[in-house]
């Protein structure tokens, strides 16, 4: 798998992502500064978490206008795989690559805690190692993760089976208490119609090592490694 992690000014979870990708591929992903060009021949582009441009104005808004985003949109048009986690998800939304918006958490506080997610769409490059309905744990760490979209968009996402993950309790039940940031219909992550762009708020990359408290997040990276096994 040839993967690149894009670093914007203020990105800060690129190192976590490097660890997770290296764990499944055995080698370091490419680290790309946002002023660089996207090289040819990549299998996966990752927009990592953090506070690009300090989260000022709107989370992800300024990074979405960054020079490299033109290349990333071309990459998407040509069917490239893109993973956006946390701030990366926010950037994908601001760039128009995924629908909706991410509002301030309902509690109006930064939330740093583990959550549980249920896999709603298995069999994609990001989720093939899970069964549909599988529940896994992941840390979240964000101030603006409250997923919002109008009802028509939400209906379309659900109708086309593009909801990747939903916040649930540890038994996989959708509850209000499990939906800490207040997201519409408990949505934690979504997919593009071609299933090649995935954005989610929680951080599976921070739970890939028993030493750090578990390996619940590892299947996402194993799925990606399986998908690009030949590369």
């Amino acid at each position, binding site marked *: 798998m040839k993967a690149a992690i894009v670093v914007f*000014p*203020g990105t*800060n*979870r690129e*190192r*976590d992502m490097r*660890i*997770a990708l290296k764990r499944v591929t055995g080698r370091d992903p490419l680290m790309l*500064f946002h*002023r660089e060009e996207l090289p040819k021949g990549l299998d996966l582009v990752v927009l990592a*978490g*953090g*506070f690009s*441009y*300090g*989260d*000022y104005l709107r989370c992800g808004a300024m990074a979405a206008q960054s020079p490299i985003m033109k290349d990333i949109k071309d990459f998407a048009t040509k069917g490239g795989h893109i993973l956006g986690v946390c701030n990366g998800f926010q950037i994908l939304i601001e760039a128009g690559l995924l629908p909706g918006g991410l509002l301030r958490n309902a*509690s109006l*506080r*930064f*939330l*740093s*805690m583990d959550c549980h997610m249920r896999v709603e769409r298995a069999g994609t490059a990001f989720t093939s190692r899970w069964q549909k309905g599988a529940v896994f744990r992941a*840390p979240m*760490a964000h*101030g603006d993760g409250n997923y919002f979209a109008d009802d028509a968009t939400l209906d379309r996402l659900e109708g086309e089976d593009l909801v990747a993950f939903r916040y649930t309790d540890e038994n996989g039940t959708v509850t209000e208490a499990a939906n800490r940031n207040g997201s519409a219909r408990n949505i934690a992550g979504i997919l593009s119609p071609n299933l090649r762009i995935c954005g989610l708020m929680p*951080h599976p*990359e*921070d739970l*890939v*090592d028993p*030493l*750090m*408290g578990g390996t619940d997040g590892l299947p996402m990276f194993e799925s990606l490694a399986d998908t690009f096994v030949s590369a």
Partner: protein
Amino acid sequence: MTGPAAKPLDSAARPVDMAHMTAAAPVSLDPARAAQLAAEFGLKPDEYERCLAILGRTPSLTELGVFSVMWSEHCSYKSSRVWLKELPTKAPWVIQGPGENAGVIAIGDGLAAVFKMESHNHPSWIEPYNGAATGVGGILRDVFTMGARPIANLNALRFGAPDAPRMKQVIDGVVRGIGGYGNCVGVPTVGGEVNFHPAYNGNPLVNAMTVGIAKADRIFTAAATGVGNPVVYVGSKTGRDGIHGATMSSAEFSADSEEKRPTVQIGDPFAEKLLIEACLELMATDAIVAIQDMGAAGLTSSGVEMAGKGGMGVELVLDNVPQREEGMTAYEMMLSESQERMLMVLKPGREALAEAIFTKWELDFAVIGHLTDTGRIVIRHKGQVEADIPLAPLESEAPLYRRPTEETPKQPVLAPGAVANPTTIEDALLRLVATPDLCSRRWIWDQYDSLVNGLTVKRPGGADAAIVKIEDHDRALAMTTDCTPRYVVADPEEGGKQAVAEAWRNITATGALPLAITDNMNFGNPEKPRIMGQFAASVRGMAAACKALDFPVVSGNVSLYNETEGRAILPTPAIGGVGVIDDAADAIGLGMPHGADLILIGETEGWLGQSLWLRDIAGREEGAPPPVDLAAERRNGDFVRARILAGEVLACHDCADGGLLVTIAEMAMATGIGATLAAPATKAPEHAFWFGEDQGRYVLAVSDPAGILAEAEAAGVPAARIGRSGGGALVMADGRSISVAALREANEATLPALMGGKA
């Protein structure tokens, strides 16, 4: 100081005789006006006389500003230096002791840990969010200035009574500020401590600690050398932020401190993140000779310290300083405390390389001067010399006071049976785990990103010390902050000892080897003998513990004049401890495992003096605090660590605030698993056994109790089996019990209720 100095200077403060200005020498102030301003800036009359003698003339406004900040308590440590010298600062693993931006210790694999703790107390009271945020920013800069990538933040916080005026707002602002800054820069906030006491009602303490990792042979310092080498300014632009902040934080609070609000700086964690990446990128080259962050007293202290430590002179041209505001004067630029700025001296010809890196990270870069061999700091602005001061006497003639001290009278020892338990053991426990000082800190942790970087092995609450692994190594650091101010006020020497011992104990309880500490000395007005006596005695106690435990001091910070309307805070020598464990996988936590035997290490007399039980259940704050037997401390701790590293211990928690039963309850609440407890083998009353705060104790969960007890006996370590884990309740020998769920509910409810709603 009083109000006027905090305001922009009016024309009356300008040089009186403009006609005689020359480009060669600074223009002296009118002597009478200078003396008056000196007093307003906080210089004592004899200090001002000394300044006149050094210059041989009346200072210019800028020079007066330089003297007043360099000789402020904050920068000169004039009241504390004579005492701090007593602290041990050396060990074979110490690379850099106190005196630099941060301390440095070798941790193996050619790596070094770089760390320091620093206070931002007064700014956090005035504007809690930005005060706390810029405190975090400042301590981060102290660490990455030395060439280290910050890997962890911790915070030692002391708030007033939760229901005191403004306190809820202060707690909320401080927590948001620490989170807002740390989360954004991407450094995990992994630990710390919080206390509540009315003595902090008008003067909370915000002590921020940062730990970083560097290559041991790539440490950067402030001492600048090389005549002609360029002096470079990088980071954010300079505005009129915090002018005279350093002297403000050395002045006792008075009711008019509300008026001082405009001096508080705004933190920009985004700029700091860029500064970290740009500095570390430049540090990977050979371009830097010396580097210093612009913290308190900004350009003044960084310029003076870099040139002074290198035995050089420096000439700065302020016209080249990147400025955020129009019409800034030399005085304002030299004293500005705008955040996220650094000063560095580069090797000749490396300017373009450095500039390219800072431009890439969208930061300002400017050559603002060069090193000279004159031994003087010369400040030029708009063709005029604004200051010309010899550096050596600025340091060597700095005021140094051995202020009068008065010992705190010893308090009588409270016998274990002296105060009866007004309630049942179960009820006392339930109430204790819910008191502000012992309740769950989850409401706070849940706002801090403790995992960013993906290397956090033990999260907040998971172990006695936070454990963070080092990238691409097996090794991990163990970190903690500790102090028990109620012990220190009752007996400053024992309290100082206890603070160091507890930090050592908390690191030990994870299996890590404690290596060194940073200290953050928060005290009241040192001009009062009782306060100075607290300081001196605390240092004495700390020094004794540091020596006995091989736990030297490598960095620190002093914050004095923590008083409001003449009432001092509890003396608070906060200790930040750092240790290392060779393999992160060997580190253990405090959560109660299933089916393990519980072993108590250490002696239990049932010491109730100054205990939380006495204060929060019996309603009395009195008695001598528990003494620390340093020999027993060392012996017990070394034994515990060896057993952990031998793989014989499943979980370990030290006995601290609240005593033995609270310790066991905390282990149980961490996992939801209870225990059946043996009847206490003691002559003390039952409540003294369970809630006494005797020192040097640990509770171990083990699978081979006989083996551990035999080893303890052989090592001369007091040890006893006190129970066995399992079930969902703590069950006493006579069958009384309390469910872990009830304990958890009480423990978790307090902070959200105090702060009005869940996080």
